[in-house]
């Protein structure tokens, strides 16, 4: 029998064996190469890494992506070949074929094990070939799935220029108006728009840089939400182009993350770049989004306006789905580190969260989120949430059999077998790639949670629950 927490209060943390399935952190290449348009990602690893990317990326592979494997062969592993020479050869070829603004080296488990000194090699090679090389150790020994992005952004944070480094006005504009598209209103009105842009719609506040890779529409949406509060976003990490990395003024710039898996980036910005980190929950769900905006406002000394109404308006729009989901139970097996934020939002929607598996939990970086979770549980009368770090999938499945949740959020390896046993599932990875942040997308998030329930409800009358042969 699984012991169910019944006390109301802060989450209960547990830790298991870590025998769980998640995607390799090098998968971050899939979205980052698209996000940073002038980049090239070079994954330095084995056939195993390459075949993973090929299978995980599916159709993207055929679209001539700006990434490649530097496949380690026997000579590389035996150290019979010189790593500097080999990487030099490959990077020169990349330069010739693609001429990117930056090459990001993605270290893997293998480069860790053979102790390839990527950080040592990169500066020399960078100088030799004249292209910046950023080194990220997105390996599976230390990180899980989405944390791959964290390693890249943490490495890239150090490349954000200080104000005195940016000389030309043009470059400054590029770097501070990282959302190139947002404030240019079309050719006809060029002058008018420039006037508009110079109109002081913004409060006077310290520069704010946001970090975390979101799709452009979501970047625009969150930027607009902050604009409504009179807050100007000075830049995003990552920017759409490497050459547009935001200016960071040490000791002055404030930074806030948009995703829970970016703790190393946060600390890189705090420690190396001496930024002020906003302690905030994450902008997932109207509650989280409001909390996120409020925390930013507070740090910047801006009084939030109309946020309560905005949140209420979004909740009103969500009503039908909230009513549908209320009272249903959900189990997170743990995959993308979004679990706590999603659980908090869904508890607010009235769902019952049976377990939050999560690969890794940085309690400091997630502090505000965990507080909001506790507050939410208290307000919703939800028992203390069981958070299981480094879960053991086998044990979780036994618990799932016992608890019979209405929905299991799981990685791709377990979804079909669970469905065949009559347990409704949703891929966690879909939440990683879908647009779920901010007020505008809260609806999409709920729709995604709801879809499998709708579906199996729809198919229910057919009696197709147990699709395995009883032994």
């Amino acid at each position, binding site marked *: 029998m699984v012991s169910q927490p019944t006390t109301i209060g802060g989450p209960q943390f547990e830790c298991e064996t870590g025998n769980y399935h998640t995607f390799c952190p090098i998968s971050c290449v899939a979205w980052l190469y*698209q996000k940073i348009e002038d980049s090239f990602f070079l994954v330095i690893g084995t056939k195993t890494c390459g075949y993973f990317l090929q299978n995980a990326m*599916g*159709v*993207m592979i*055929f*679209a*001539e*992506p700006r990434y490649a494997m530097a496949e380690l062969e026997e000579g590389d592993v035996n150290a019979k070949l010189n790593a500097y020479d080999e990487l030099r050869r490959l990077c020169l070829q990349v330069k010739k074929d693609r001429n990117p603004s930056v090459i990001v080296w993605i270290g893997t488990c293998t480069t860790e094990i053979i102790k390839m000194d990527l950080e040592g090699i990169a500066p020399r090679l960078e100088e030799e070939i004249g292209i910046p090389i950023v080194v990220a150790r997105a390996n599976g020994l230390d990180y899980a799935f989405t944390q791959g992005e964290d390693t890249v952004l943490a490495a890239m944070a150090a490349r954000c220029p200080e104000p005195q480094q940016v000389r030309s006005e043009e470059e400054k504009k590029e770097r501070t108006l990282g959302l190139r*598209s*947002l*404030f*240019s*209103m*079309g*050719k006809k*009105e060029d002058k008018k728009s420039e006037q508009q842009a110079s109109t002081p719609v913004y409060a006077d506040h310290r520069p704010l840089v946001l970090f975390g890779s979101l799709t*452009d*529409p979501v970047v*625009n*949406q969150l930027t*607009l939400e902050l604009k409504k509060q009179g807050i100007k976003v000075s830049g995003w990490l990552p920017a759409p182009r490497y050459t547009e990395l935001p200016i960071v003024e040490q000791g002055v710039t404030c930074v806030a993350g948009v995703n829970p898996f970016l703790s190393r980036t946060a600390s890189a910005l705090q420690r190396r770049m001496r930024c002020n980190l906003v302690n905030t929950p994450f902008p997932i769900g109207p509650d989280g989004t409001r909390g996120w905006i409020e925390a930013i406002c507070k740090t910047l000394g801006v009084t939030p306006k109309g946020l309560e109404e905005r949140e209420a308006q*979004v909740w*009103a*729009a969500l009503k039908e789905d909230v009513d549908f989901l209320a009272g249903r139970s959900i189990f997170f097996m743990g995959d993308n580190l979004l679990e706590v934020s999603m659980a908090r939002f869904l508890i607010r929607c009235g769902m019952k969260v049976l377990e939050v598996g999560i690969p890794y939990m940085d309690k400091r970086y997630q502090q505000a989120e965990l507080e909001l979770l506790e507050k939410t549980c208290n307000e919703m009368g939800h028992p203390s949430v069981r958070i299981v770090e480094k879960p053991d999938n086998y044990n979780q499945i036994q618990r799932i059999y016992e608890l019979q949740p209405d929905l299991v959020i799981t990685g*791709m390896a377990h*979804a*079909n077998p669970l*469905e*065949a046993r009559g347990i409704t*599932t*949703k*891929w966690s990875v879909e939440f990683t790639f879908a647009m779920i942040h901010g*007020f*505008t997308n809260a*609806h*999409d998030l709920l729709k995604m949670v709801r*879809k*499998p329930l*709708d*579906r*199996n409800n*729809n*198919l229910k009358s*057919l009696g*197709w629950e*147990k*699709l395995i*042969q009883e032994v």
Partner: protein
Amino acid sequence: MKLAYWMYAGPAHIGTLRIASSFKNVHAIMHAPLGDDYFNVMRSMLERERDFTPVTASVVDRKVLGRGSQDKVVTNIVRKDQEEAPDLIVLTPTCTSSILQEDLSNFVARAQEQSKADVLLADVNHYRHNELTAADITFEQIVRFYIEKCKGNLPARSEKPSANILGISTLGFHNHHDCRELTRLLGDLGIAVNVVAPEGCSVHDIQRLPAAWFNVVPYRELGRPVAEYLQSVAHQPFVDITPMGVIQTAQFIRAIQQILTAGGVAVDYEEFIREQTLFVSQAAWFSRSIDCQNLQGKRAVVYGDGTHAAAITRILAKEMGVRVVWAGTFCKYDGEWFRSQVEGLCDEVIVSDDHALIGDRIAQAEPAAIFGTQMERHIGKRLDIPCGVISSPIHIQNFPVGYRPFLGYEGTNQIADLVYNSFTLGMEDHLLEVFGGHDTKEVVTKTLTADTELEWDEAATRELARIPGFVRSKVKRNTEKFARESGRNQITLEVMYAAKEAAGA
């Protein structure tokens, strides 16, 4: 007169000839002008038929027209009787020659005197019937003729349970494979197939029809009149449920169970149905499996003959969780039945054979996938919407060499693939487009959106370009509608997001 580019069902004589040439050792004489005998080409080319089509044109030319056709027709009938020694010769005019108002029954009577074969005139009005209804009429006419010839001396019921399969014919949509699958399914149920008709059935076999315990009529379009006739004269019950999809196949089997039980052989097929549904057919599991979850709520339109359009609508709606925006058929003569079948399974029912209307309604619906005929497949190509072909008019692609039944449990597998590939292949193309694998297209697609005074600013235009092609025009229209309603004439990112939130609510 009617301005027409395309028809979903052929003229009446095609139906008659499909029946006549499906039977074994039956020859048809087509009394028609030169060139009207393209049925022979269709059969030879589409079915890759190895034998000469047993249809001879008795050509009406200007000379014949002048002096009357009788001699020529009678001569040709008698000649074929000698050359081919058929059991039966069927005479049919075409739309054209039927206007001549000749006494064709008299031609037949005269020819009969000199022929060993039976000679029949196919009794169809060529302006009121089309291929489908004419086939049904001719099939019944021939069966009735030979059953009546028995003068009540009908064969006794077979000792063990047996069935006839009625409605399998040449140039039928996947008919051969369906027949093989039905035979297999009946075999699994312990039921022998007595006679398949008309395909491969001789006139002597017709007289063996009453020996079966019951008749199976898999298609709505062909065979019901025969089944009803046999019910009246030989007290044979029939099953007219189309065993397409897991649900309907189960219903079909249960109907057979009832008949057998009523006939004194108690059977219980429930365990067989369960086993086939859950484990032998892969369709139920396919539907439940995780990568099909996203079929839930996807929007589709369905159009075709009554049988296939109704069955596919049911499968999409009930078994796959796909939302059928509209379901339609070109079988106008059977519209009521069609409505009764798909009611509650789709948002709207369309009964029409106007291909232009159908094309427009598809464009307006902007579905994620179409299930239709070859015509809709081409409409889909123009609109960049994938289409699975589920119905006649037939095309050489509907005569695959590989096994592709639509009926029975293997049929459920084939349909699952068809549905999956229609949605995902479309998706793959769009993904390639999104990820820049193909040439990128003009942002604002030429769609049905009327010209508008709304101006999209650069940022919004760029945002629109990022939206995958298959929903782009919808987002565009929703946004413009929202902008108009809220009195704005420039579309900015703010307007786009506000429109999205409003639509989501």
